[in-house]
């Protein structure tokens, strides 16, 4: 009985094999090894090379075990661009009929046991395979004769994306979630049509710099052979989820990407592409990618009238984090066209249309209504024509100006830029910037003129001073993070002059910027200085020399300052209030002494010379007075002269810098005693 059953099965198998051979699409090698008919009854068939459009199965081995069950081993299976090796299937009941070979309850042991069914309709030559790894997940494949060769259809219903993660390129972030539904159709003549939709998809890399969550994306792809290439069209729509691609964070807003082009063995070409980004605008692009060299060999992109505010918030801001442009209010529109060649960026044209930007919370700067064209070329000298209607600098109004920026590759020059500021101007000349290896190096000269001191000091929140600000900026260089001023910076203030030499600014944009300089002030009008700082009126002129000035975070940490009456003949008067305040520099006492004495009846005193020095180091100020008038018990700050005259002495040689500043603020009692002559 058993023998008869086995004979029937062997005959059915032979029939099926004959059908496959007749189909002509398969090469068949039958080795039909009939096992000895004993207790382990088994038939092993070896088939070879099952091929169709985008599909091939090689070295197929069927082993019939008892009870209608069979084991199938496939040496190599290729579907589309993916290949698998040594696939083993187990079939509980392999039906071998004249017109049909079928396995309804098979298992693919691939880590987990995946339920599988397949059937082959021998007359229609249609092979259908279905995998059902989960109750709500089906992967179906159908291979059938088409107009030209065999056609292949792959249908996914609730397909888990992690199943394809193993074939994902290892240098891309790993797929960690998601479901795919849709159909991929390969036709024997080389045409491909795919419609897929991904839902709840996710990806991430190990370091957390690139990740996507809950992504919903629908895709459509059509391709057809054209000469030696493939002509293709693709559409993508992003309808759900979020992506973080350091430093960008993007949320789905129904962004749509459509592209068409050609693909051959050496190149992937996008002939026409467009990205529609709701809220920002449309970008059209094209490009060429060299598959062998793995690089873009040419590309161009253009976008028209993009709103700057949306572009800044969604795209630019994350790249500017930590810079002075990280918190802006922006407005206007910008159009741009970019061309890339084999050697990188070749051409950028930017058209600015009423662009405004404003430092939103700190109000350090603002530019309003910037218009013009910036035509940059990698290997050609060009000139930008940009106009600015107005702006603000440290809350001071800036007038209209033009920026005639010269460009030549990574070299930028500005012959002259004159910016109206308050009632004067500042001018930058011979500005030149070059891209260094790590950062930009630049230099310029210039001057500041015609700005009323009262206006600029009021605007900067400083004590209001009189006069006109004029300054000459010698060569200023910025190399790495250091600004260096070659030559002397010259300012005219308080009817005198200030000369700053050896000025160096280190780490200017850090938390602890450092400034080093030597400063010489000459012939400052004491009347203007004292009225500016509400110090109590003094008349006369002073020179001040600050050697080795060092500021950290704009606070002095080291200097050697000497203040002395200027040489020459001029009225020298000092008010009672000024005496009190000067006294405060030396310590407690003088104010009380003056008030107790009859001198309180005098508003003003005469003096001959005044002098004060402070050598600051480690938070301590080592003080002295008029040079050459050192006394054993103290030092002379104001040497009396005329009638009524007053001499102010200081006794404290050392004082903490902070304490000195506090004293200046408080003007308290001290041990400075006025001596009436």
């Amino acid at each position: 009985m058993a023998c008869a059953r086995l004979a029937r099965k062997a005959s059915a198998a032979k029939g099926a094999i004959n059908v496959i051979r007749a189909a002509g699409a398969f090469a068949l090698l039958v080795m039909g090894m009939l096992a000895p008919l004993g207790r382990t009854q088994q038939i092993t068939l070896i088939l070879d090379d099952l091929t169709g459009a985008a599909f091939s199965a090689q070295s197929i081995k069927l082993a019939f075990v008892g009870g209608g069950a069979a084991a199938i081993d496939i040496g190599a299976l290729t579907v589309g661009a993916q290949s698998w090796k040594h696939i083993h299937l187990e079939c509980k009941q392999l039906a071998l009929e004249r017109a049909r070979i079928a396995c309804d309850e098979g298992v693919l042991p691939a880590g987990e046991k995946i339920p599988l069914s397949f059937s082959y309709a021998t007359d229609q030559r249609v092979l259908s395979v279905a995998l059902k790894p989960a109750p709500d997940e089906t992967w179906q494949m159908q291979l059938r004769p088409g107009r030209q060769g065999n056609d292949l259809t792959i249908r996914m219903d609730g397909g888990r994306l992690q199943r394809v993660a193993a074939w994902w390129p290892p240098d891309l972030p790993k797929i960690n979630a998601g479901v795919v539904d849709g159909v991929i159709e390969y036709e024997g003549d080389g045409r491909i049509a795919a419609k897929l939709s991904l839902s709840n998809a996710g990806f991430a890399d190990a370091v957390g710099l690139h990740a996507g969550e809950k992504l919903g994306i629908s895709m459509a792809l059509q391709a057809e052979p054209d000469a030696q290439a493939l002509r293709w069209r693709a559409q993508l729509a992003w309808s759900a989820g979020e992506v973080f691609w350091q430093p960008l964070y993007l949320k789905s807003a129904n962004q749509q990407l459509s592209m068409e082009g050609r693909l051959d063995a050496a190149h992937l070409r996008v002939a026409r592409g467009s990205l529609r980004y709701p809220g920002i605008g449309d970008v059209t692009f094209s490009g060429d990618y060299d598959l062998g060299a793995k690089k873009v060999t040419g590309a161009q992109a253009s976008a028209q009238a993009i709103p700057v505010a949306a572009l800044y918030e969604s795209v630019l801001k994350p790249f500017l984090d930590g810079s002075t442009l990280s918190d802006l209010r922006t407005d206007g529109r910008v159009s741009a066209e970019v061309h890339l060649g084999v050697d990188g960026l070749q051409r950028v044209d930017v058209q600015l249309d009423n662009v405004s930007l404003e430092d939103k919370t700190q109000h350090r700067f603002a530019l309003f209504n910037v218009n013009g064209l910036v035509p940059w070329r990698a290997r050609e000298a060009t000139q930008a024509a940009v106009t600015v209607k107005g702006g603000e600098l440290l809350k001071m109004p800036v007038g209209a100006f033009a920026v005639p920026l010269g460009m030549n590759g990574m070299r930028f020059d500005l012959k002259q830029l004159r910016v109206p500021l308050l009632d004067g101007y500042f001018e930058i000349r011979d500005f030149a910037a070059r891209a260094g290896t790590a950062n930009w190096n630049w230099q310029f000269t210039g001057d500041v003129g015609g700005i009323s001191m009262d206006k600029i000091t009021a605007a900067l929140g400083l004590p209001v001073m009189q006069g006109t600000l004029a300054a000459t900026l010698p060569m200023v260089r910025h190399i790495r993070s250091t600004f260096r001023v070659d030559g002397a910076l010259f300012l005219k203030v308080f009817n005198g002059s200030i000369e700053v030499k050896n000025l160096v600014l280190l780490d200017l944009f850090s938390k602890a910027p450092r400034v080093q300089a030597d400063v010489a002030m000459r012939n400052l009008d004491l009347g203007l200085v004292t009225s500016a700082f509400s110090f109590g009126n003094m008349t006369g002129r002073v020179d001040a020399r600050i050697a080795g000035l060092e500021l950290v975070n704009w606070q002095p940490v080291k200097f050697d300052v000497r203040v002395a009456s200027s040489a020459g003949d001029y009225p020298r008067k000092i008010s009672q209030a000024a005496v009190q305040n000067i006294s405060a520099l030396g310590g407690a006492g003088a104010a009380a002494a003056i008030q107790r004495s009859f001198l309180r009846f005098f508003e003003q005193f005469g003096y001959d010379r005044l002098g004060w020095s402070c050598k600051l180091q480690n938070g301590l100020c080592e003080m002295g007075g008029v040079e050459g008038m050192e006394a054993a018990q103290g030092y002379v700050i104001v040497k009396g002269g005329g009638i009524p005259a007053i001499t102010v002495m200081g006794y404290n040689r050392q004082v903490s810098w902070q304490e000195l500043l506090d004293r200046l603020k408080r003007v308290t009692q001290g041990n400075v005693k006025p001596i009436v002559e």
Partner: protein
Amino acid sequence: MKNWIMKTLWLIAALFAAGQAFAQANLEINTPGVAAIQGSMQKRHGELAPLYASGAVGLTRDGNVALRDPAAVPLAQRAAVNGLIAAENQDRAALYREIARANSHPEWEGDIRNTFGQRWIDRAQAGWYYQNAAGAWTRK
């Protein structure tokens, strides 16, 4: 031969002296620069502390902070957290440099960084993550 021994002894003595010199560094030195950086770090600490506690951010061996567990930070906050980490590391580098400068020994910056690296870990709260000597993340 004798010359060689003498040279080696000198080298050992010099290295010992260098170590001794660094040991004298005043790590508590207060300058306007140190104060400005510490102020900035203190302001940021309020934002970093919950990230240390959740294990998203940990303390590295070399006196920096790093994103340890990206999954603990929602995508929308990822850029901000990376920004916080970058700003913190920038401040820490500036602090080590400033303390070295204030000690008038800019060349001590590396030693100061290492000392601080250990100090931050010692002062970390229980539950925070730090890199151990082998570079592996460890929960305190």
